[in-house]
């Protein structure tokens, strides 16, 4: 059938996958983000069989499928386990100011949260840095209710 050997004959069709999505939070997510919105606290759920405390909490244990009914509030203080500085946004545009993002763990908890770091100079950020969540004044229920984590004050 011959190949296309002239650039002028190349034809491209532009298009997209024209769907968008509205997600529920799930049973565990609903309870976690309601508590965050209404009381400003972080919850974790406990699996006795596997001796694991999950953050974010789950209603089932991924390892043994036990139903997790023991939920507890976490102390507000966490620690930076690892971090990075982003120089690009989602559309690959260069950012004028790098955005600090970290994985934050909490004592006695399996897991943690990925979130932005704020009110901190880049050179201050290190593994083990103690941080606390800065919550939005008006909370609507969702990850955006946490504005960022900052070095803890006391």
């Amino acid at each position, binding site marked *: 059938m011959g190949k296309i050997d002239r650039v002028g004959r190349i034809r491209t*069709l532009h*298009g997209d*996958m*024209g*769907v*968008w*999505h*509205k*997600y*529920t*939070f*799930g*049973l*565990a*997510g*609903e309870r976690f983000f309601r508590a965050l919105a209404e009381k400003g606290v972080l919850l974790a759920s406990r699996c006795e069989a596997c001796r694991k405390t999950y953050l974010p909490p789950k*209603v*089932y244990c*991924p*390892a*043994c*499928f036990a*139903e997790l009914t023991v939920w507890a509030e976490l102390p507000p203080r966490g620690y930076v386990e690892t971090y990075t500085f982003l120089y690009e946004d989602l559309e690959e545009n260069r950012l004028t100011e790098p955005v600090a993002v970290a994985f934050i763990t909490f004592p006695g908890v399996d897991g943690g949260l990925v979130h932005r770091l704020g009110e901190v100079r880049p050179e201050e950020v290190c593994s083990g840095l103690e941080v606390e969540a800065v919550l939005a004044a008006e909370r609507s229920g969702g990850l955006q209710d946490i504005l960022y984590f900052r070095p803890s004050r006391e």
Partner: protein
Amino acid sequence: MAYQRVAIVGAGITKFVRRAQETGKELAAQASKMALDSCGMTMKDIESVSLGTAPDAFDGVHMKGEYLADGAGATRKPFMRSFVGGGSGVYAIIHGWYHVASGHFDTCLVVAEEKMSSTMPHPQAAFNTIYDQFTERPLGVNLLWIFALEMNRYMQVHKIPLETIAQVSVKNKLNGLDHPCHQEGITPGPHLTVKDVLESEVMVWPVYRLMVSPVSDGAAALVLASERVAKRMTDKPVWIEGVGWHLDTSYWTNRDLYYPRYVEYAARMAYRMAGITDPRKEIHVVEPYDPFAYKELHHLEGLLLADKGEAPRLLEKGVFNRDGELPSCPSGGLLGVGNPISAAGTMKVAEIFWQLRGEAGARQVARPVKRGLAQAWGDLMQVGTVVVLGR
């Protein structure tokens, strides 16, 4: 026969609902937990996981298989997703069968999940993206078009009246009322008649609203085990005696849609493996894929359980009723229970599993059953996936 014999030893399922609050992971976990509890096993006994789930465009997550992994208990285990469109619900069991039969593993957890309600503005919109982007999508096509085109072709070639096809809806929707997981609101009530079906709204002629299976969220799971393990786990193992699947050309507008040859080839493959020579006698209960009313008849003919054009007549004679010679869709099928695509296929395999063990309760078919068949369909009128089970 060089491969290990493989049995289903446990089955689990969630309710089928129009909109689930659970995330896809939570639905998968609920079904998996029921399947494991039903045969007294835990994830420690499971060596591999086979996930079946249909388009990522529904749950709204790219690489949906990865997202669902920890819902299917796959953390730090061999985990693989297989995807043959709507046929995935039955293919995931075939995929699981190869995991165990090949000797790689002694157990495999098969999980199928679908959460269609996340798609906006409507799950149907996601189906527009299954069409060829160059030659079909620009026409503004929706999924119902292809079914209506096939149904019309099937009706025209065999001169099948709409009233007969409407009877499939009545049979399956009433059967579905006996299924604890059936979706609310998809069956007007126990008094449903053919007249009601033909008075429901014409959506894409000749498809009426009550001839279309609903959009659903749900999950189902099965536990497969090698002969050695299966005999330890249960005194009623259900053996996977035959597996078969075939894919036809994607140029669906170049084939005659009145007969699903790909289902016939898949069925012959499964029958050959199961040593079945006369399916109409040797298959005692069947769950053909019924996303649309006519499709059950269309598939019964493809499965060689009725001659071409004969299925409607057998339907009218009651052969496919629960008290008939060859009960078809005793579960209620996709029309009566719901259609979370891949989980619907696995629900059908689970139904045959429960029927063969005599555990289907109000849905238990009248005649004694020793061998059953579950079949799913998918893609652009293109793939048939068949599993033959036996006690």
